[in-house]
């Protein structure tokens, strides 16, 4: 057998590197992302002639629990129909018993990359609120994300914010995660291999109780913590080029601080409460998580009337000058 040429070497390496989809509906393209358990390739849906994203387990991760986990992620995504969640199109089976997930191909950038490019604070907060609304929707549908971090959030071409990678999400008992779900048994509704005692999440972003192997008992407050870390990241991100660097407003820092409190009971009870506080800041109202000083209260109350105050001040000054001139 003669030595393979460069083109053959490339084909053989591709065989080693990619799952075998056979000759069916989907054609596999380049790898566009990867996580701890899965890899994502761009693909072509031959039947509908459109690009899709195809998620697989890594070739080595073919244990029954891994397969069950990806299958479960597909079912979970299928029940979460929301503009902030990437829709799943199909769940396919591989000849080796593995599964693959076909999803909408999202074009966009990671949230951290977007904000590092210099985005005004108001826009950063609007991105945050879109994400918070998505997570609140998932909670209302009985699903905890449990791995919120910038790498799992994409901003699409039209500014839409998408929560990605629901691989370690947990379905809680009943249909509403916003109610306390402590009655659920430890592993109930969890993906295989992610039950009690297992550390779920990403260091630096996960809640303290998650780091201790308890990714269940705090319920939605776990995701409140993740959102708090995200808000902190957004507050520290640079403003637009040329704009002077400013310390994040104290009320917003108070919101992030409350959301990331060590004890779950000290955090916001749910995501809508947290989002409401951010909206209060945007609307010039008092932020509940923040204890205002009198000076802050005055500044906040007067802030919407800055132009009127300046105009009135200028008017009074001019009248005073005219009065003084006429007295002479």
């Amino acid at each position, binding site marked *: *057998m*003669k*030595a*393979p*040429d*460069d*083109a*053959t*070497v490339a*084909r*053989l*390496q591709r*065989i*080693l*590197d990619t799952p*075998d989809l*056979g*000759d069916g509906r989907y054609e596999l393209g380049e790898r566009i992302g*990867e996580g701890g358990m899965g*890899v994502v390739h761009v693909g072509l849906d031959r039947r509908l002639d459109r690009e899709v994203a195809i998620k697989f387990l*890594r*070739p*080595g*991760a073919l244990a029954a629990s891994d397969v069950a986990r990806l299958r479960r992620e597909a079912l979970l995504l299928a029940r979460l129909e929301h503009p902030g969640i990437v829709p799943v199109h199909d769940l396919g089976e*591989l*000849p*080796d018993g593995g599964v693959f997930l076909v999803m909408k191909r999202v074009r966009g950038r990671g949230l951290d990359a977007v904000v590092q490019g210099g985005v005004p604070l108001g826009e950063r907060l609007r991105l945050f609120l879109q994400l918070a609304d998505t997570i609140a929707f998932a909670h209302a549908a009985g699903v905890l994300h449990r791995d919120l971090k910038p790498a799992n959030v994409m901003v699409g071409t039209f500014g839409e914010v998408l929560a990605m990678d629901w691989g370690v999400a947990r379905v809680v008992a009943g249909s509403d995660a916003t109610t306390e779900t402590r009655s659920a048994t430890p592993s109930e509704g969890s993906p295989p291999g992610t039950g009690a005692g297992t550390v779920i999440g990403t260091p630096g972003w996960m809640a303290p109780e998650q780091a201790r192997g308890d990714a269940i008992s705090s319920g939605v407050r776990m995701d409140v913590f993740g959102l708090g870390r995200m808000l902190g990241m957004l507050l520290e991100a640079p403003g637009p080029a040329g704009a002077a660097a400013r310390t994040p407003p104290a009320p917003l820092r108070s919101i992030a601080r409350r959301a990331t409190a060590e004890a779950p009971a000290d955090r916001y009870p749910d995501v809508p409460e947290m989002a409401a506080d951010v909206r209060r800041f945007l609307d010039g109202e008092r932020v509940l998580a923040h204890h205002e000083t009198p000076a802050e209260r005055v500044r906040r109350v007067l802030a919407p009337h800055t132009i009127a105050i300046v105009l009135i001040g200028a008017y009074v000054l001019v009248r005073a000058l005219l009065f003084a001139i006429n007295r002479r």
Partner: protein
Amino acid sequence: MSAFPPTRHSAVVAIRSQDPGERSRGYDAIVAAYWRPAYIHLRHRWGAAPEDARDLVQGFFADAFEKGTLERFEPGRARFRTWLRVCLDGYAGHAREAATALKRGGGWTRLALDFDGAERIAGELQAPGADPDEMFRREWARSVLEGALADLSTWAAERGHDTGFRMFLAVDVESDGGARPTYDELAQAHGLPVTTVTNHLHRMRREFRRAALERIRALTLDEQEFRDEARALLGEDPA
């Protein structure tokens, strides 16, 4: 049970064996995997003429066997592949200075190697100024994949999977661009259902992957180096 029993032992371990037969078999495996990367490296990195490169390759492996050069590999400091290339560079530099490399046929057993085939590849590589490390890695990968193909051929023949192997060759090895046959065409050509073609090809790809990993394991000293080299070939952790 492994599809390639018995599991290959590491040739890098074998060359350190006190058993002369085991040590010799280890060297044979290393020569089989590295002679062509070495030849192409000498042609491009050192600008050696084909005849000189042949003699240098023969001389290098004979010298390494005699002096135990490759056995001094320390896994914590570099990959075995890198160590071998450093030794080769040292040998080539010394040979150039001493002008001893052209003593054709002197002192060592000349190995039967397909230098004409290697020369064809060397001739196709139009890469003046290419990174020697990357070129050596690429030739190493070619050598591993060629070995894995040979292993797969043997495996398929022993288990009566010749049809599957021929399909694998047609789709994944011998095809170029648009000439790749579809599963439907293969099914018609072999008088089989398309699902059987799918199963054949899936089995062959799975076993090819296993054969490639076995090859890598045979050329590495420990688990860490195996994983590093697998990542270099597969682009991912082989866990």
